[in-house]
């Protein structure tokens, strides 16, 4: 039996919006593919060595916790950079993406210096913006149409638009202006998408697992069917593309 090792970063801290569903999806799909998924929860006081893992996941969390999390992650900054450079898969969702950028400007003017692994400046917003998302994403050389939700607490401004994770069909995305969603660096996915992403888009989850397997020279597969998720996708896309929106760019059928 193949084995994959997953590091789930700070689950007690970063677990908004039912995001543990991403872990359940990885677990389920690994089960379907007869892969033994070993999940290590990394807490604030846990020892952590990124390079021993095949996959790393950090889910959406509150900005107020970032300073404490950064304290724990900063000693691993170079190892995390190397982890990504080695083409290993990483998923970071929601507001937690901000922590991987250069700096975060909070609503109260406090500035938090991030890990600096993404060319990203983040500005916390006064109001929350919640909506659906549909976009075309590129991952591991393949194209995926992704659906999900986002609860946006901040605007994400990347210094370059060379590596967006997705191009929006509908949604607010990084900042409600440039029609880009998230950022892709090597095999790392940094996205605003909630839903949870891997539950609603198991085809992407499957590719994430494929990346981890190919890094270990293991056989990969695309032969999985997801009927319920496919039907869910179609129902929701119809709804989203026909609904009323105040978005200006990236407003789907009303564009």
């Amino acid at each position, binding site marked *: 039996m193949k084995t994959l090792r997953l590091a789930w970063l700070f689950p007690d801290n970063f677990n908004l*919006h039912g995001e543990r569903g991403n872990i359940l999806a990885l677990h389920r799909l690994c089960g379907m593919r007869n892969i033994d998924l070993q999940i290590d929860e990394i807490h*604030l006081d846990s020892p952590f060595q990124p390079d021993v893992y095949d996959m790393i996941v950090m889910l959406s969390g509150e900005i107020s916790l970032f300073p404490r999390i950064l304290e724990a992650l900063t000693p691993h900054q170079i190892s995390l950079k190397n982890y990504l450079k080695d083409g290993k898969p990483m998923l970071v969702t929601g507001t937690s993406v901000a922590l991987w950028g250069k700096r975060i400007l909070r609503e109260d003017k406090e500035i938090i210096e991030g890990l600096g692994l993404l060319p990203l400046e983040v500005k916390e917003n006064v109001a929350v913006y*919640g909506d659906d998302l549909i976009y075309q994403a590129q991952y591991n050389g393949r194209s995926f149409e992704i659906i999900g939700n986002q609860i946006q607490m901040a605007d994400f401004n990347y210094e370059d638009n060379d590596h967006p994770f997705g191009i929006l069909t509908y949604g607010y995305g990084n900042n409600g202006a440039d029609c880009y969603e998230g950022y892709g660096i090597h095999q790392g996915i940094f996205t605003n998408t909630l839903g949870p992403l891997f539950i609603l888009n198991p085809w992407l989850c499957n590719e994430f697992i494929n990346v981890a397997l190919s890094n270990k020279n293991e056989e990969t597969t695309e032969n999985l069917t997801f009927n*319920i*998720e496919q039907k869910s996708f179609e129902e*929701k896309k119809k709804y989203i593309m026909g*609904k009323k929106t105040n978005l200006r760019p990236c407003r789907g059928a009303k564009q």
Partner: protein
Amino acid sequence: MRFYLALWFAKILNFLIQLIDKNKGSNFSGAKALKIDPQMVSHFKGIDYAKILFITGTNGKSSTTHLINHLLAPYPLKIITNLEGANLLPGIATSLSKAANWRGYLDYDYMVFETDERYLPLIYEQLPAEHLLITNLQKDQVQRNGDPDFIVRKINQIMNPKLNLYLNNEDPRSKAFEDQGASTFYYSVAKHEETFRKPDSFPSLSCPRCAHGIRYTYFNVDNIGDFHCDHCGFSSQENPDARITDVNFKDKTFKKDGIRFPMPYDLPYMLYNYAGALLIMDKLFHKEIDACVPVFDDFKNIAGRFEKIPYGRKTIKYMRIKQENPDTLQNTLNVIAQDPEPKAVCIGLYPVEDIVPYYTNTFYTFDCDFGPMAAANVEQFLCFSPVVAYDTANRLIYEGVSEEKLYIQPNGDFDEMLHHISEMTTDNIYLITCLASYDELNTQIQEKLQ
């Protein structure tokens, strides 16, 4: 002068609204008057801030406000309140405009206001109450509130040394305010037969003090229960000021300080509302607790454990959930899980259609533990809502429910749904959906039965 214009305008509107419909207008006159004088609430006269209680939090603020008013009813006290549920600044302005005389003077003994947690700083700016009860601070209405810290920061804005705090002893986020007021009192519910635990696969909560993981000994309500942080020692008080004990769901009773109370609504989350109200009666109003016993008996508020709708041979049992609110959903799942009889469960989660843009959020279901319910002798699951029925079904699949047990009805048509219910082998039907969907279904059932 602006204040008087605003006040008189509000009073005239109040009078006219009363002529049209006595049940309307909890917000309207205040909203219009605030356009004339945006600081109207701060301009009323004769206010003693030491005699104002605000009740805020995610869940239970309305029930707690109703119960406190009910418990105060036998006393000859003039209470200004907002029982109609308008809990934003216009609602408060409406209540005050009704209570004031034409010169803006308020003659009252206490004000007891339910206040929306997100708008608390705006209300407090004009009406700086010196007593604040926080029911709990949970994930809720994320399209408006984002994350719980968004609300914590709002409440932090009003914290000051004059404030007397009444806090839920078993909610870490609420209890974390304990050092910020003039005095702090705690209310609590002891472990009882519907106390539960969640599997270890569920993450916990960050300690509000040190960010390490909070450990719960048990939950009385989702994310509310006896807790401690191993790292910094932050925990529930061992000896809270008001604790409900000896909860007996069969007899519908509980005890406080050895005194037995009737439990008008036998739901675990209501116990915290009872505890909070009794704490206020004791510490703020200095009333004898045993005098509250008979008053509890005729407390009428919201629905009971579940509404029962007879439908042919079937009984449809409905418990209200609020969309985007995992706590109310978890509570419903727990109640269903306790019924060992064969049953069918109909789940109608809908897109969230509260403010534009509407959206297809069902992610809060992954914060809930469906396991015990899914394993509780359920013969069939019916997922019946438009747009997100497949997501609902998928959530059940993730809990180990086999696809053979699932009937997915993505058109949300109630006729078709009722037809399917009629053909189910079991007569014991549970319904999980929001109130609007239930009301519509109930209307159709009543029409069919006529």
